[in-house]
């Protein structure tokens, strides 16, 4: 399977290392499309409250990720859990998925190095 590339011909590895907000946004979109507030909520819940994206930080990151082709808009819809306002939804692209996978592998390699140097124990999930 050919590697996903951006319109400018960049490989997934060319986007590494990802910024914190970008990685968390991609992780939030891996399994489903979400609107902005749902992305923020997913990041907070998954990190058990340790990471809270501000709205300005979120949309600044989304702007750059849209330009880089890591995410794309998937239309507008109402979120019945909130109210009857239409919200713009975002989804991850194949390039975004490849970049997220590459970043996860990079971080996993860092964890292996930390374990080998006994900075962390093997019990860390």
């Amino acid at each position, binding site marked *: 399977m050919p590697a996903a590339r951006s319109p400018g011909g960049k490989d997934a590895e060319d986007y590494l290392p990802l910024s914190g907000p970008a990685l968390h946004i991609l992780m939030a979109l891996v399994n489903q499309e979400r609107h902005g507030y749902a992305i923020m909520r997913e990041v907070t819940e998954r990190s058990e409250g340790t990471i809270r994206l501000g*709205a300005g930080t979120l949309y600044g990151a989304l702007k750059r990720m849209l330009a880089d082709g890591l995410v794309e808009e998937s239309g507008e819809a109402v979120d019945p859990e909130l109210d009857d306002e239409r919200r713009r939804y975002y989804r991850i692209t194949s390039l975004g998925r490849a970049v997220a996978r590459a970043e996860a592998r990079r971080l996993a390699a860092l964890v292996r190095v930390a374990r080998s140097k006994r900075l962390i124990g093997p019990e860390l999930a």
Partner: protein
Amino acid sequence: MNSELLLRMLVHAYPIPFRERFATELLQTIKDQRRAHGKHGVVADLGFWSRVVLDVVQSASREHVLAACEHRRPVQLARLAIGRTFIAAAGAQVAFDLLTPELDMGIEASLLTAMVTLAGALLTCRTSTA
């Protein structure tokens, strides 16, 4: 001044192209956050709005830096960033005063807020006409 008006003022700190694309979503998302935050008293509300204002100031400054780098006007960038930061800081001070009327900061604080606002407006206007 209600929170809706304050939010629209804050969003005005962003560059025009960013506002045109994301202002509606920004306002919607901050309102969603506010709804989820609920009512917890003055101190908790102050903490919530402080985080919102700080995030807007940081991200708006970043967007202005990026926009100016695209157009390679560093002096104009510096003036605009400083001017907008002054205006945002003055807006935060006004918000604080409105949310905590029992905390009378005195005439000195009001004068300082007015001076910071004026300085920010002058820097921004000079940038616009430069």
